[in-house]
């Protein structure tokens, strides 16, 4: 028995001191495959009222999850007239994070994005949801309204469909996000980064394994990629660690010295979900965009 264990350790099948339930693919990579949901009631940034409280207690966590929908509806009501479709069927508010953090951002310790003055100015000027937006043309609307993209990493939206499917093959990890049907194919073979001339909405990812952890570093973003006011020098580092059969710990480190005074780190929890992923046919059925623009033109004419 001891011999088997030693052989297994030599082959890298068992790492002492780590969960031994973590399975591996036929070719020996840690297995992250499956359907995952990363919805959470924890906001990205910590609200001022929780400034000195980085974690919820177990009892508080139960309350927060129970009240998640009402909290969300209250937040949404300030922005839009609440109509019937905003209900518990339409919205999914998720659970607390695995460590019960009160915000996804854990560094800096105040849980806030450490903007430089220029970075804050750029972020405030970017058309994103939750801001008062103009509608002189489609470019003035949020990227999600245009069906172009959501965040190029696994930061959940507060509303719905935070589902992701991971498929692996030797040399590749693929992460398909339901919103907006984005398949990120991450090469693991150590190939050089794409030339600096390449600038993409989702950047250009490269991955590698550090023990059980998948590390994905992404660069080559578009200047107008709109990730929290960042410039094209943005560098995103994601870490995926499978904790058990039903859970992956997720960590995101964001670096862009022109926009943030220090690199900042957010955490997430991916929980196994039954699926299936739906096809998020966004642009194909985008009746909102012509509706928004037409409405604005009628307002221009004084109706």
């Amino acid at each position, binding site marked *: 028995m001891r011999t088997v264990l030693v052989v297994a350790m030599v082959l890298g099948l068992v790492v002492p001191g780590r969960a031994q339930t973590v399975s591996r*693919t*036929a*070719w020996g990579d840690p297995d992250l*495959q499956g359907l995952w949901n990363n919805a959470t009631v924890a906001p990205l940034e910590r609200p001022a009222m929780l400034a000195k409280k980085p974690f919820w207690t177990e009892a508080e966590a139960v309350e927060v999850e129970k009240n998640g929908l009402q909290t969300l509806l209250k937040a949404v009501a300030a922005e839009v007239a609440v109509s019937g479709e905003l209900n518990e069927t339409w919205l999914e508010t998720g659970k607390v994070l695995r460590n019960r953090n009160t915000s996804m951002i854990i560094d800096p310790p105040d849980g806030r994005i450490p903007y430089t003055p220029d970075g804050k100015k750029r972020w405030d000027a970017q058309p994103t949801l939750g801001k008062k937006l103009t509608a*002189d*043309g*489609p*470019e003035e609307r949020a990227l999600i309204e*245009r*069906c*172009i*993209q959501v965040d190029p990493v696994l930061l959940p939206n507060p509303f719905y469909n935070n589902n992701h*499917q991971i*498929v*692996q*093959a*030797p*040399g*590749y990890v*693929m992460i*398909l996000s339901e919103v*907006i*049907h*984005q*398949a990120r*194919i991450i*090469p693991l073979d150590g*190939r*050089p980064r*794409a030339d600096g001339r*390449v600038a*993409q*909405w*989702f950047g*250009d990812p490269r991955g590698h394994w550090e023990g059980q952890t998948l590390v994905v570093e992404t660069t080559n973003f578009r200047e107008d990629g709109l990730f929290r006011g960042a410039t094209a020098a943005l560098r995103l580092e994601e870490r995926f660690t499978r904790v058990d059969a039903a859970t992956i710990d997720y960590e995101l480190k964001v670096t862009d010295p022109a926009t943030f005074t220090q690199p900042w780190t957010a955490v997430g929890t991916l929980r196994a979900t039954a699926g*299936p*992923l*739906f*096809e998020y*046919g966004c*642009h*194909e059925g985008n009746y909102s*965009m*012509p509706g928004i*623009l*037409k409405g*604005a*033109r009628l307002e*221009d004419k004084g109706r």
Partner: protein
Amino acid sequence: MRYRVLKFGLAAVALVAVAAAAAMAQTASGVPRTKDGKPNFTGIWQVMNTANWDIQTHSARMGPVVALGAAFSIPAGVGVVEGEELPYTPAALKQKQENQVNWLTRDPEIKCYMPGIPRATYMPYPFQIVQSQNNVLMAYEFASASRVIRMNTQEKSPAPAWMGWSVGRWDGDTLVVEVTDHMEETWFDRAGNFHSDALKVTERYTLADANTINYEATIEDPKTFTKPWKMRMPIYRHREPNAQLMEYKCVEFAEELMYGHLRKQPTSR
């Protein structure tokens, strides 16, 4: 002297012939395989034909934009349809002809809509396969469309989809994919060839060698065609060492066309 050159030349030809035969033997048996012994389709692939212009044989003709002249006119091509003719019902044939005349306003490709299957396979953009035992992902550069082929599942489609619902199985060394639950809005090509929501596509992917897929798709759609028909084409591997799927998020290229008339200050075109 001349004799020696000739002799050397013959020897060289013979050597090349032997090398070519060896290479073919090697590739015939050297199809890449996964750990579980299945043919491995993981890679970046693209067709080398003009089927996206017209799946049937067509001559070259002038493109729709005068300013683009020879650069964006329509290349000739041999068809990919077995037996060349498409068995449209009379009503469907009329619809196809109307579609062709109204191509610029009706073709979903122009609006950057997801192209559906089989059209995504033979658009002039690469697609990437990531093959796992239970799921095979096919990601297409055009419109960032993709689909997951679920192997041997009984699971039913939750809703119709632009890229359909793909269920895979192995028939020997051939990956067979049945695609159902299509949106009726997708087309086969820019020539107005179309289908209904009753479409069922049965695809067969077979590796002819390490770098070539023999692709075959059987089309069944009793609302549009009087009988099933087939298309066939090879698909080639991208062998550039730095080949990768790039972004072609074309929504922003179609916004002016779709919403330009709703701008506060319409752009002059």
